[in-house]
C-alpha cells in the first residue's frame, strides 16, 4: 500500500466514523460512551472492507476511483439521460415553451429601451424609490444612477439585463412562492426540500447552463431558466421561514376563533410573512444579478455580454463600465425592494404609527 493509499484510508475511515457518529447521535437512547464505540466499530468494518477490496484488485485506495473507467459511472448516466431528453423532447420544448417566452422577453426588452424614453424611465424609477422609502435622497440617487448609465452609453444593455432579471424573478416567484408556502405548512415536504435547496445553492452555477443549453439552445431563454433556478433558493427559504416565524399564540388565536386552514394561511400567516418574503425577493434579485455575466456565455445579451467582450478584447475599460452599471442596478433594486419590505413591517411596529 502506497503512502497516498494510507492517507486516503485514514480519510475514509475518519469519514465513516463521523457519519456513524452523526447517525447514532440522533438516537437518544444510546449513551454518549456507547456512541463512540459504535462509530468506531463502523469505521473499523469500513477499513477492513477497503483493505480487502484493495488487495482484491479494485484499487480503491490508489486514487482515481479505480483505473480507466470510474467505479460509479454517474457522468455517463447523466449524459445519456440528457441526450435522450434532447432527442425525444428537444424540438417540442423549444416550440411550445421556449419560443413563446423568448418572444415575450424580446417584446419586454424592446419596450424598456425603445418604448420608453430613458428620462421617463429614470423618473419612473425615482418615483418608485420615493414611494417605497419616502426619502428624497434615495429618489435622487436612483435618478442619478440612471443618468450615469445613460451617459456611459450602456442604456440598452442595462435595460436588456433589467428585462432578464425581471422575467427570471417572475419565474422564480411563480415557482418559489408555492414551494416556500408548501414547505412552511408541511414538515415532511420541508425535510425533502432542504437538502435539495442546499444542493441547488452549492452547485456551481455554471453547471446549470450545460443541460439547459442542450435542451433549449443558446440564448435568452436558457439564460432566464438558469438564472431563475439559481435565484430561487433564497425566496423559497425565506417564505418558509416567514410562515414559521408567525407567533404561535397568534396562530392559536386564529384557530380558536374558527379559522379554516386556508383562512389561516391567507389572513394571518402570509400577511405576517410578507416582510420575510420581500427579503427573499431581494436576495433572489441579488443572486440573479450575480448570474448575469455567466449567462452571457450562452449568448444572453446585456451588461454581462459587455463584460465578456471586455475580457475577450482585452479592454479593461469596457469591462469596468459594464460592471459599474451592474453594481448601480443592484443598488437601485436592492434599496427599493428593501424599502418595500420595511414598509410592510411599518404597520405593526411600535412608534411608527
Amino acid at each position, binding site marked *: 500500500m502506497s503512502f497516498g493509499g494510507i492517507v486516503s484510508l485514514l480519510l475514509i475511515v475518519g469519514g465513516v466514523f463521523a457519519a456513524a457518529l452523526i447517525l447514532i447521535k440522533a438516537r*437518544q437512547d444510546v449513551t454518549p460512551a456507547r456512541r463512540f464505540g459504535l462509530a468506531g466499530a463502523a469505521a473499523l468494518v469500513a477499513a477492513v472492507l477497503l483493505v480487502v477490496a484493495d488487495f482484491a484488485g479494485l484499487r480503491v485506495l490508489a486514487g482515481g476511483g479505480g483505473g480507466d473507467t470510474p467505479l460509479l459511472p454517474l457522468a455517463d448516466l447523466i449524459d445519456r439521460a440528457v441526450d435522450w431528453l434532447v432527442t425525444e423532447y428537444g424540438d417540442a420544448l423549444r416550440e411550445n415553451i421556449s419560443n413563446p417566452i423568448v418572444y415575450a422577453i424580446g417584446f419586454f426588452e424592446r419596450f424598456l429601451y425603445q418604448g420608453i424614453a430613458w428620462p421617463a424611465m429614470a423618473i419612473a424609477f425615482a418615483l418608485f424609490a420615493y414611494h417605497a422609502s419616502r426619502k428624497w435622497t434615495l429618489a435622487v440617487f436612483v435618478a442619478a444612477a440612471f443618468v450615469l448609465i445613460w451617459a456611459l452609453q450602456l442604456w440598452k444593455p442595462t435595460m436588456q439585463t433589467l428585462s432578464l432579471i425581471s422575467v427570471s424573478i417572475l419565474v422564480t416567484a411563480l415557482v418559489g412562492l408555492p414551494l416556500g408556502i408548501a414547505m412552511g405548512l408541511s414538515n415532511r415536504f420541508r425535510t425533502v426540500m432542504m437538502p435539495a435547496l442546499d444542493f441547488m445553492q452549492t452547485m456551481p452555477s455554471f453547471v446549470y447552463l450545460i443541460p439547459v443549453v442542450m435542451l433549449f439552445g443558446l440564448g435568452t431563454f436558457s439564460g432566464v431558466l438558469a438564472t431563475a433556478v439559481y435565484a430561487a433558493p433564497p425566496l423559497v427559504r425565506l417564505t418558509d421561514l416567514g410562515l414559521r416565524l408567525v*407567533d404561535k*399564540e*397568534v396562530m*392559536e*388565536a*386564529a*384557530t*380558536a*376563533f*374558527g*379559522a*379554516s386552514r386556508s*383562512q389561516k394561511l391567507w*389572513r*394571518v400567516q402570509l*400577511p*405576517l410573512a410578507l416582510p420575510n418574503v420581500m427579503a427573499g425577493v431581494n436576495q433572489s434579485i441579488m443572486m440573479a444579478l450575480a448570474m448575469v455575466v455567466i449567462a452571457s456565455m450562452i449568448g444572453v445579451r446585456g451588461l454581462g455580454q459587455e463584460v465578456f467582450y471586455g475580457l475577450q478584447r482585452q479592454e479593461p475599460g469596457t469591462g469596468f463600465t459594464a460592471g459599474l452599471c451592474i453594481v448601480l442596478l443592484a443598488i437601485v433594486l436592492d434599496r427599493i425592494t428593501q424599502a418595500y419590505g420595511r414598509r410592510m413591517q411599518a*404597520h*405593526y*411596529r*411600535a*412608534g411608527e*404609527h
Partner: protein
Amino acid sequence: MSNGKRAKIELKGVTKIFGDDPARILPMIAAGVSKAAVLEETGHTVGLYDVTLDIPEGQIFVVMGLSGSGKSTLIRHLNRLIDPTAGQVLVDGEDVTALDAKALTAFRRSRMSMVFQRFGLFPHRTVLENISFGLDLQVSGRPGREANREKARIWITAVGLDGYEDAYPHALSGGMQQRVGLARALAMDADILLMDEAFSALDPLIRRDMQDQLIELQSRLKKTIVFITHDLDEALRLGDRIAILKDGEVVQVGSGEEILTAPATRYVADFVEDVNRSRVLTAGTVQLDCVVVTASEAPAAALARAGNGELQVTYVVDADGKLLGAVTGSRLRRAIRENLASMESLIEPVQTATANMVLEEVLPLTLQGDLPVAVVDGHGRVQGMLSRRSIIAALAETAGVVNPGQ
C-alpha cells in the same frame, strides 16, 4: 352539582400524553408507573391524567396550578387546540372530541371564544379589525365586514377603548392590548369564554383593573368563564369555583373558602398558607354564636342567659326579631341594682355586618367600638357575632389542618 346549576362543560377522564406513541403509555400509567419514570424510560410527557371536572353554567370557574401543572393544556382541550389521548369533553352534553374538522370549526365559531396570555393579537390588523376577526371569518364581501365593524365598535366601548379603533396593537400598552383580546373574544357572542392566564402578563395595578372589569362585565353577561391562573389571589378573587391542578391531576375542587378552610391535601394547604385570608373568609364562616334577648325581657333574665363571656354581651332585638343594639353584663348588673324594669335605656348601638362580607371589610367595623360586630341577615335579624379576637383568631389559624374527607 352542589349549587344546583347544571354542568355546562364536563370533562370525563381526560388524559393527555405528549410523545411519539401516546397510546402505548396509557396502560403504563394505569398500572401506576410514575410520570417521572415514564419520561425517563420512554421520553413521553404526561400532560394531564384522568381529569374529571364539572364546570357549571354562568359562573367563573378557575383552574389554578403552578407552571407545568397542565392548566394551559387543560384549557386547550375545551376547544380542541389540543386533542386528548383519552377521555371526553362534553359541552351541553355534546361530545366535542367526536367532532369532525368541519363541525369543530363551526363549534369554535359559535360556542367558545378565547383570551390568551400574551394576547395573541393580529399585528397586521387594527384594533377594530382584530375585534371583528372572528366574525369576518364567517362572512364574505364588504357589506358583511362593515356590519361586523359596527358590532366590534360596541365592544370597543364596552372595554373602554374608544378612540383606538384604527390603532395597531403594537402601539398599545399591555393592558390595552388585553382589552382588545377580551373585546375580540366577547364579540363572538359565544356563551363560553376561555381565559388562559389572561392577566398574568400585566402589571399588578393593571391586572387588578382588568379583574374588576371582568367581574363587572360578568355581572351583566353571565357567561360561563373558564379562567386559568397561577395566582391564588386572582383565583380567589374571581373564582366562583376553583379547581387546583398538580402534575396534571385535579387535587381539589371547591369554592375559595372551602379550599382555604378545608384544604384536601398537604399540597393545597401549603399553597394557601400565604394567602391573604381576610379577603376570602366571610363573616358567616367565622361568626360565633351569640345570645339574643328581646327588649321587653327583664334585665335579670337577660343576665342569666348572657353566660360568662368576656363582656357578657347580649344582643337586644324588638318583638319582630330586628336588632336594636347590645347590652353588656356590667350594665345589666347595674340595672338590676337600680331595679330598672326594662333594658331600653341600657342599649348601646352596635356595628353590623352581613354574612357574605369578607373579614377585610368587617375588621374596620370592629375598631369603631368595644362591642362585637353583629352579623345580621337581610331583615336585620341577628345570625351571630364577630369580636376582634375571633377575627384575628380566624386569620391567624394556619391552614395546616389536613382534612382529606372534604
